[in-house]
């Protein structure tokens, strides 16, 4: 039987692998997608560091003695907000870079096909 831990761990692993692969690509759109996948993986990881528990409230509920760790949830909220802002920034930045230089390569150098257009 597949445990919850195995599912979460493999999901984080697959997201990270996809994120790293895409982040190493040459075009900004793919890199942005890669960074997004990577940040999903990190957020899931942060969420899971409080250990995976079922049916436990994070803060308070009447008659419940066992609680889930609320801190990772607060951390992941902060991380999500920051990553969201960063992703928005990098999208705008790559768009501006594309409009100014006519190339969507991360290093700003047009590839062979676009060379005529960029010049």
């Amino acid at each position: 039987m597949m445990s919850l831990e195995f599912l979460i761990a493999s999901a984080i692993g697959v997201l990270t692998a996809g994120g790293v692969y895409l982040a190493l690509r040459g075009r900004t759109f793919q890199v942005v997608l890669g960074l997004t996948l990577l940040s999903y993986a990190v957020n899931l990881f942060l969420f899971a560091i409080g250990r995976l528990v079922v049916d436990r409230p994070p803060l308070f509920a009447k008659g419940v003695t066992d609680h889930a760790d609320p801190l990772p949830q607060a951390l992941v909220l902060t991380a999500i907000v920051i990553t969201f802002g960063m992703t928005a920034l990098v999208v705008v930045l790559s768009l501006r870079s594309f409009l100014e230089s006519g190339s969507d390569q991360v290093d700003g150098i047009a590839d062979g096909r676009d060379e005529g257009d960029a010049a």
Partner: protein
Amino acid sequence: MTALDHLVIAPIVIPTIVAPLALLAMRRRRRVGVALSLAGCVAMLGAALALFGVAQDDAIRAYPLGGWPAPFGIVLVIDRLTAIMLVLAAALALVVMVHAVVTAMDRKGWHFHPLFHFQLLGLNGAFLTGDLFNLFVFFEVLLIASYGLMLHGQGAARLKAGVGYVIVNIVGSALFLIALGLLYGLTGTLNMADLARRVAALGMADQGLVRIAGLLLLTVFALKAAVVPLHLWLPRTYTATAPVVAALFAIMTKVGVYAMIRTVPLIFGAGAGAAAWVPAPWLMPAAVLTAIVGFAGVLAARGMREQAAFGLLGSTGTLLLAVACWTEATTAAALFYLVHATLAGAALFLMADVTQRRRGPYADAAVAGPRFAGQQAAGLLFLAAAIAAVGLPPLSGFVGKLFILQAVAGTPYWWILWATVLGTTLIGVIGFARSGSAIYWKADGADPVAGPVRSRADFAAPLALVALLGVLTLGGGWATAQAQAAAAQLFAPHRYSLAVLGPAR
């Protein structure tokens, strides 16, 4: 609590107030905004100096935010190291701000002043905080502001370099979060003092994971400090951005070094079991390579800005050579050199700015061009800044390098370190002599540049930095004593834990 106790938070509160006020004022009355911004820098320097005075009694003070007790709430901690970094950041910020206003660089875009203060907010917060997650948040604050500042003035080259800079730092932030997650999963805390106690008490089964967490954390700090092989973002970014912004960024790489000096002796120090001094075997060769790559870049650079960027890289390498020995004496030497290297690096960037404003189409390229106004004075100032940056007598770079050589003399691989420091100094001297003589001595016989710049007001800021370096040299004994006292505090981590958490339970 008295007013003096609340002074600890002033370096964070002042930019938090000044930045939005400057943003509001800039739209209607530019002068009011600039005056506010300058006043904010002065106030910050005052607060930093006051805190420096407070820290002189050798006590470590914790300031619980919102009155929440330490492991649960976030604390700010002021000790000697933090006080030194705050004074350094505030002094550099004031000089750079004056230069930006004098050269009208701040008018190239709308938001220079607010971004500048948000950058200082991030810097000061990173120096003050006693909580690792809070350190991450302040790192993000200073990075977001730096993205804006880096693009200040715009231009295609700046945007291209900016995309790379932002992507590298986002990946760095992801690694930072993974390291924090591992540490929290292992210990259940992110308060640095609490971490120090709990890492030391970890069981055998967790030793491998805590080593991984420590190394990941140090990788992130090494990325911020631009240590080879994680340095490739720095020369491109710092060359593409406006020199006055790059001068402020001289302290950004030092934030990475600061974070290493803060966390390693405290959390991964002698008491940390298998994770004790975990980065040491990796950091040392990386530091040697950084020094060599940096000064080789100084020799090969095509322009003054590129040269200053590589000089910054080389100085970080030299600095980390001392840091990576992880002894009290070498850390003291590193702290002295850190202050010096920040000021000297910024002086080089400001000189590049002063020169390129006068040379017209030749800008900062290291080739012989026509004569230009203020050539002699600029040449002399560049000479002083270059002497400081490579570490020749009489300026403080020499004192700093001597201090480092002396401190590492007792370590097992001292001859590698000596060879690196002395060899890179020679390469640096040749590199700066080459560009300096091409720009300030040789002339290609063309008509003098009828540059728009006649006023010499922009000499003030680099001159002030060189004067500060002179003060650091003349007051070398006092500065050395300060660095040694700060290092002594760092290598007594139980005092930090005691100040933040109280006696061990």
